[in-house]
């Protein structure tokens, strides 16, 4: 954790405060907020959502519209977006998570499509397919976050907070209950654990994080359009979590940074980058179903065990 913090503080000074990479890493931070929640949902609640771009879009549009049309305070707008998104998630989550199977994936997918259609059709409100701009920047105690480097530190502090919160969730009653679902949902139910209620809680939490991420995006880019929250992003987020390893929160961060940086090198493929992502996703799921961080953890454990075995063998001989 400390290494993580030091690394992120040192990074801007390694690449230069005004470097383009700062922008890339701001986006990585913004998306990390979503993938942390998504990793809780996928790795711990065993559910998949293909609509987190929708919650991101809800956050971005609510923040954007309230601050530009009604001149709300950005923080107030952010809270309103959180509330709206969480209620939407609750409405979707309650019926779908009560069913076993994967209705949630399709329901969230449908929600995302409906939202994009809505954003595109309501031209007078949302600017239609071309979106709208002039969203004010965020300020903290009167200090406006104007420069990239300021926003960089701001976003990654929030990511760190979200990470700490997610770790607390995993080690709380909810986290234990969720792990028991993996051990056997029926047994957990028999022990009196209302597994579906915990699943709904995690889903709403992950949607709220996506909304927060959307609000930050709106205030950083100061412009929002439907392309920012299309299905492609939802799939992308799932790929990020799966590649990093969905059973590790760090996996979400690693996957997100990797997939935000990778496109900078994949420009040569132009539109075919999507093909590369599909292939990467399939290969990871087939050969390293626990993701990169999962594979790494398994490797370290194996090496350690081998080392210990050698060690005890030697001791046994003596």
């Amino acid at each position: 954790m400390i290494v993580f913090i030091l690394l992120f503080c040192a990074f801007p000074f390694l690449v230069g405060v005004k470097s383009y990479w700062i922008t890339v890493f701001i986006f990585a931070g913004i998306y990390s907020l979503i993938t942390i929640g998504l990793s809780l949902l996928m790795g711990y609640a065993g559910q998949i959502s293909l609509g987190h771009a929708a919650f991101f879009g809800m956050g971005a549009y609510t923040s954007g519209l309230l601050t530009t049309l009604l001149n709300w305070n950005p923080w107030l707008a952010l809270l309103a977006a959180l509330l709206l998104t969480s209620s939407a998630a609750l409405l979707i989550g309650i019926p779908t998570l009560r069913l076993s199977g994967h209705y949630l994936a399709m329901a969230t997918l449908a929600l995302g499509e409906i939202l994009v259609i809505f954003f595109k059709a309501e031209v007078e409100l949302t600017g239609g397919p071309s979106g709208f701009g002039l969203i004010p920047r965020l300020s903290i105690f009167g200090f406006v976050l104007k420069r990239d480097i300021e926003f960089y530190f701001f976003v990654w502090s929030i990511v760190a907070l979200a990470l700490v919160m997610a770790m607390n969730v995993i080690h709380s009653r909810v986290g234990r209950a969720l792990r028991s679902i993996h051990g056997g949902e029926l047994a957990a139910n028999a022990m009196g654990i209302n597994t579906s209620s915990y699943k709904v809680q995690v889903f709403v939490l992950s949607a709220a994080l996506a909304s927060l991420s959307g609000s930050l995006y709106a205030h950083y880019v100061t412009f929002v359009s439907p392309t920012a929250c299309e299905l492609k992003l939802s799939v992308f987020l799932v790929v990020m979590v799966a590649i990093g390893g969905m059973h590790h929160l760090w996996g979400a961060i690693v996957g997100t940074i990797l997939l935000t940086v990778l496109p900078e090198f994949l420009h040569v493929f132009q539109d075919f980058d999507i093909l590369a992502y599909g292939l990467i996703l399939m290969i990871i799921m087939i050969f390293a179903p626990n993701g990169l961080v999962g594979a790494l953890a398994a490797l370290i454990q194996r090496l350690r065990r081998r080392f210990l075995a050698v060690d005890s063998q030697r001791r046994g001989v003596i």
Partner: protein
Amino acid sequence: MGISIWSQILQYLVTGVSIGSIYGMVAIGFNIIYNATGIINFAQGEFVMLGGMIMVTLTAAFGAPVIVAFFLTVAIVALIGGLFERLAIYPLKNAGVLSLIIVTIGGSIVLKGVAMFVWGKESYALPHFSSEEPIPILGASILPQTLWILGAMLLTVVLLTLFFRFTLIGRAMRACSSNRTAAYLVGIDARQMVCLSFILSAAIGAVAGIIITPIALVDYNRGFLLALKGFSAAVLGGLGNSAGAVIAGFLIGILESLGAGLVSSGYKDAIALIVLLVILFVRPSGILGDKEALKHRSF
């Protein structure tokens, strides 16, 4: 005036029934794989898209006669379905449902990417199977292609029913879906049945893609929305229930066409999806009941 509004509604019904047939067929494709594996195959729409694309290539570029091209296309897409299972689903062996679903998402992206690579981003059309002269009925007009669509859909349903009821393989597949372990004990190779379910699903998807292309263009990106609407039909009909899928397909097609014509065409594509959300909320077992949801209800 009164007559014209009725003939207009009749026209919407006709359009709805033909597009609904396609949704129903996509839903059946979902059901076959769902029954065999318990997973929702996100690449289902891609099979439909591939069906349309390959048919266009075979008839336009190679000049194959429609009937030959039809069977060749179905065979090719079925082969792709089988390969997809062998390359992506089979190696996962004991993976959880979640991993399987993620793999099908990856597969759908790959198939879409390959289609974009091969055919580019343009839309393609196919000539109608027979004349393009509309047949007037009660003030509305029906394109002969609509009849082809209906006929192909009904034939598919009949053949599938016969297959699942009277052939050994069909009955083995049903046995696997109702109890995998028991089927294994009587000597049915469940893994073969999973592969077969992908082949069958892909073939049905291909048929749907071929028959819809003459009245709706096809491009590399078309599969996704069709899959989502087909899934809406599958849930409305009760996931795993193919008779329900057909009825639900018609219902969604008609609702969509009426909604687009009478309410707002901007929200045309949202209608099926709103139906999906409402049905999940109100009656997740669908109109004709679904095993999974019913099981849950008894708690």
